[in-house]
C-alpha cells in the first residue's frame, strides 16, 4: 500500500509538472498534425491517410516519449531532486516504473492524436483496435525505456536531446514507418531488424491496413523482450552510476 502511494504520487507529479504542460500538449497535437498534413498535401488523396497513419502514430510515440523522459530525468538529476527519490524507502524498480509510466501514458495519448485527425478525413472501419492498442502500448514502453537508457547515459539536458535525436531520426527512415523495410538497401536491412520500432510499426500496419509482413505475435514478443532488456540494462546502469 505504502509503495503504491509513492508510485502514484511520483506518476501524478510528473504528469502534472512535465507532461501536461501547454508546450508538451501543443507538441503532441501539432507534431502528428504537421506530418499528416505534409503527406496529405503530397498525395492529395484521402485514402493515403490510412496508409501513413501507422507511421505517423509510431513517430508520435517515439518523439513524445524518448526525449521527454530523457530530459525530465536529466533535469531532475541536475537539480538533485532525483536524489530525494533515490533516498526514499521505495525500491529502484518501483521508482523507475513510476518515472517511466508517465512517459508511457503520454506516448499512448500522443499516438491517438493522429487517429482522431484521421477519423475526420478517412474511413477507419476494419481496424483491429485491440491489436492497435496493444501495439501502441508496447511501442510506448520500448520508446520510453529507450529514453531511460539515454537518460542514464548522459549528464546534461542538451546531451539528452542530442543523444535522443541520434537514435530517433535514423529510426524514422530505418523502421519502415514510411519507407518499407523490404525496399531499403540490403546492407541497411539488418539494422532495421535490430531496431524495436520496426516491429511496433509493423504491428500497426497489420492492424490498420493489413500491410504488415511480420507475424504480430513475433513482433509483440520481440517488443516485450526489447522493453525488458532496455529496462534491466538501465536499472543496472543506475545502480552503478547514480548510487556511486
Amino acid at each position, binding site marked *: *500500500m505504502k509503495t503504491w502511494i509513492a508510485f*502514484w504520487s511520483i506518476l501524478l507529479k510528473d504528469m502534472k509538472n512535465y507532461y501536461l504542460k501547454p508546450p508538451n500538449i501543443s507538441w503532441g497535437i501539432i507534431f502528428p498534425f504537421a506530418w499528416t498534413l505534409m503527406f496529405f498535401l503530397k498525395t492529395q488523396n484521402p485514402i493515403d491517410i490510412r496508409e501513413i497513419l501507422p507511421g505517423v502514430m509510431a513517430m508520435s510515440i517515439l518523439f513524445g516519449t524518448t526525449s521527454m523522459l530523457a530530459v525530465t530525468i536529466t533535469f531532475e538529476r541536475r537539480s538533485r531532486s532525483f536524489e530525494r527519490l533515490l533516498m526514499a524507502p521505495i525500491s529502484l524498480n518501483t521508482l523507475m516504473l513510476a518515472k517511466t509510466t508517465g512517459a508511457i501514458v503520454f506516448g499512448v495519448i500522443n499516438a491517438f492524436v493522429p487517429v482522431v485527425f484521421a477519423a475526420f478525413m478517412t474511413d477507419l472501419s476494419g481496424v483491429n483496435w485491440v491489436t492497435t492498442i496493444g501495439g501502441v502500448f508496447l511501442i510506448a514502453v520500448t520508446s520510453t525505456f529507450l529514453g531511460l537508457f539515454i537518460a542514464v547515459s548522459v549528464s546534461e539536458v542538451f546531451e539528452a536531446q542530442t543523444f535522443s535525436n541520434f537514435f530517433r531520426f535514423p529510426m524514422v527512415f530505418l523502421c519502415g514507418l514510411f519507407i518499407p523495410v523490404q525496399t531499403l538497401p540490403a546492407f541497411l536491412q539488418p539494422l532495421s531488424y535490430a531496431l524495436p520500432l520496426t516491429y511496433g510499426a509493423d504491428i500497426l500496419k497489420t492492424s490498420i491496413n493489413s500491410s504488415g509482413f511480420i507475424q504480430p505475435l513475433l513482433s509483440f514478443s520481440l517488443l516485450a523482450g526489447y522493453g525488458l532488456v532496455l529496462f534491466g540494462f538501465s536499472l543496472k546502469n543506475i545502480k552503478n552510476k547514480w548510487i556511486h
Partner: protein
Amino acid sequence: MHILEVSHLTKRYNNFTAVNNISFNILKGELFGFLGPNGSGKTTTINMLTGLAKITSGSIKLLEFDYPHEIKKAQQIIGIVPDESNLYEELDGFGNLCFCASLYGMEKTTREERARQLLGEFDLIGAGNKPFKSYSKGMKRKLTIAAGIIHEPKVLFLDEPTTGIDVASARRIRQLIKKLNKNGTTVFLTTHYIEEAENLCHRVAFIVKGEIIKIGTVSELIQEAQQESIVQFTLAGGADRLQQALREKKPAIFNIEVLSDTVLRVNTPQLISLSPYIKLFEENNLTLYEAKIIRPSLEEVFVKITGIEAEHMKKDREGRKK
C-alpha cells in the same frame, strides 16, 4: 543505546580514498556533530549512511537494520536534509511537503495535516501556496528541513544546514534543530561552523582527509586541549601597574597580558586560587569587578588538533557555494 553503529567504514573511488576506516556510534537522542574542512569526507559519509553511496568496506547498522541489504527499511526511519535544497522548483511549499510525505507512504489526509503543521512550525504558512522557486535562501532551507522531518524520522541527517543563509535564518534553524532534538529526534549534523557544533552538539567528531582524528563531547575535547588556565580580571583601572608586581609574586605564571588599562589576563600551568590575587589588588588599592576563567573554544581545539584554520575552512566552503 546506540541507534547508529559505524564500523571501519571505507569509501574508495578508483585510487582515491574519500573515507578511510572510520568508526563511531551515535546514541539514541544524541545530537552528533561531524566537523571537517571541505573535501574531508563529510558528505561522502552522509551519502553512505543514507544509501546514496555504496560502501567499499566496513559496516553500518541503523537500529536493527544492516546496510546495504536493509537500506530501504532504514530509509523509512531516516530523514535527510542535503547541503543544497533539492525540492521541486515548480511545486509550492505545501505541494513539496505533501509529495515528500507520499514517498514514505503517508495517506493523503495525514500528509496534508502534517504539511500544514510543519508550515506553521517553520513560519512558512504564508508561503505555503507559493512556488518553491520564489522562496528566499532561508525559506528554502527551512522548507527542506521540514521536508526531511515530514515523516517524523528517528534519525535526521543534516548536511551543512546553515551554510549560505542570513544570520537570522541560521539562528532560527539552529533553534529548530535544538527543538527537534529535544523532542527525541537523533541528529547527525555536518558543519564547518565550529561555533555551531559547540552550541548544538552533545558529541563531536573531527574528520580530516577521510579519517576521524578526534571524537568526544565538546567539554572533553576542550579539556583535553586545555593545557593551561587563563583567568581574565576586569578592574576599575591601573591594570598595567600590576604586571611587575604579579611577576614577582607568582613565578609559576606563564604569561601576563595587559589587554587594556582595565583588563588583565593571566596564564598559569594549572588551576589557580583567586584569593592571593584579590589580596594583591586590595594591597594596590585596585577595585576588582570581575574574574573570569577563559576556556579555549572548540574552534581553538580544532585548530590545535588539526592544524587547519577554522576561518580558512569557512571561507573555502562559502566560496564554493557561491
